[in-house]
């Protein structure tokens, strides 16, 4: 088997491959040069494995590209895989997230887009339908765009149920028990210090949400200031930021195997958004946020760039591999749960998205 690491950047896609258990990597690219790649999914439910890529060209607009031969050739739906229905008056601006559903729904792929919207494909990503229940939500006109745009950037599915959680900047977390209707804000306990008045029901600036390995109702959230855990499917959140050098950051990752293990990449903020003291480090908890340890030997000591929300991922190997990409175009890989990192790639454009999977 090959470990395939996809590296989406502001100017194209690179593919890193390891044939020796993540000890060394070869780099292949650029693919889709001069196009922004903010979202990638490696759909291993299919044979052959399908790459789905959210593409944005400054000139020619956004779309979803597909490859069924691991990047040798690319295809796209002629009129666009994601098209807002005419009655909405909206136009797709960017694909922020592509998320295959569980193995029991092998043709279902979710997309989170700008303007903030959720889409569902039942044909493996060839075409998507707008999830009207969320688009028509009475809160939507009040959602404010984050610094990166009005983005629905996170989709967390439940392997045992049709439940879907989405995260929106800056709308907050919403959950639907059937993935279609009845969307409810789930932000209780999460601060929105940038809004006046008491803590609001929605409008929080959530940066990323990840599920814990133990059970899907335990979740972690990295917010625009604030790191939180929920033990009740996002019904309520508790701060777990104590022990971190900063409560600001973009990614949060949950272990696929070890209950209570998660990672964040703290940044000094609000305005600076750089690693504290210029030391890029990952912080890991093994007790669901009760305590944190700084890890990341091999990450740079003089690093003044950030790690964006999808520029980090974990693999499913044992021990868990951890991958981090920076806005100065470096990608680092750890095969030991973040203890030590080595450089996979350097001098690429800003890294926007990392995904990893074992492929034939």
């Amino acid at each position, binding site marked *: 088997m090959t470990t395939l690491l996809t590296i989406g950047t502001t100017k194209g896609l690179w593919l890193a491959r390891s044939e020796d258990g993540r000890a060394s990597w070869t780099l292949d690219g650029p693919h889709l040069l001069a196009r922004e790649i903010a979202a990638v999914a490696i759909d291993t439910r299919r044979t052959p494995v399908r790459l789905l890529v959210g593409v944005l060209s400054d000139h020619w607009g956004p779309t979803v590209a597909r490859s069924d031969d691991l990047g040798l050739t690319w295809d796209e739906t002629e009129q666009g895989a994601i*098209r807002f229905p005419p009655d909405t008056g909206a136009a797709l601006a960017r694909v922020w997230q592509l998320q295959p559903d569980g193995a029991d729904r092998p043709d279902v792929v979710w997309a989170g887009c700008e303007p903030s919207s959720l889409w569902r494909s039942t044909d493996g990503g060839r075409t998507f339908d707008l999830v009207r229940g969320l688009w028509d939500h009475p809160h939507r006109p009040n959602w404010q765009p984050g610094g990166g745009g009005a983005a629905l950037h996170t989709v967390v599915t439940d392997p045992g149920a049709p439940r879907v959680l989405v995260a929106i900047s800056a709308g907050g977390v919403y959950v639907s028990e059937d993935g279609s209707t009845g969307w409810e804000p789930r932000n209780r306990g999460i601060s929105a210090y940038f809004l006046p008045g008491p803590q609001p029901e929605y409008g929080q600036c959530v940066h990323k949400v990840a599920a814990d390995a133990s059970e899907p109702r335990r979740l972690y959230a990295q917010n625009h200031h604030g790191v939180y855990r929920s033990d009740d499917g996002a019904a309520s959140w508790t701060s777990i930021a104590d022990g971190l050098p900063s409560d600001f950051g973009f990614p949060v990752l949950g272990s696929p195997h070890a209950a209570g293990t998660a990672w964040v990449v703290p940044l000094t903020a609000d305005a600076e958004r750089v690693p504290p003291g210029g030391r890029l480090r990952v912080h890991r908890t093994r007790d669901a946020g009760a305590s944190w340890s700084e890890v990341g030997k091999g990450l740079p000591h003089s690093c003044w760039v950030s790690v964006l929300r999808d520029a980090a991922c974990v693999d499913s190997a044992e021990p868990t591999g951890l991958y981090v990409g920076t806005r100065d175009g470096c990608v680092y890989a750890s095969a030991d749960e973040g203890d030590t990192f080595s450089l996979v790639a350097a001098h690429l454009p800003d890294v926007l998205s990392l995904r990893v999977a074992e492929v034939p």
Partner: protein
Amino acid sequence: VTVRVLLPGGLADLAGGARSVAVDAAAGTTLAELLAGLAASYPLLGHRLCDETGQLRRFVNVYVDGLDVRGEQGLRTTVGDGATVQVLPSIAGG
């Protein structure tokens, strides 16, 4: 009427490889109608030029007989017999 549409190299492949495409249209046709007809023949080309609301993408410039349509009537600009419609990507990027 017959209109000549000039495409930049990056888009010509989406219209069968030709950088100059002759399009038959009704008299008094507008640029919007012309582009819709082009999109019907070449859907991927149409998707590159206009979003799903029918608006020209921000960094796509279109000239009718040398005039930037954004300074004319936009997509309502009339395209006459023998006109040349030129599509050019604007200077953008970083």
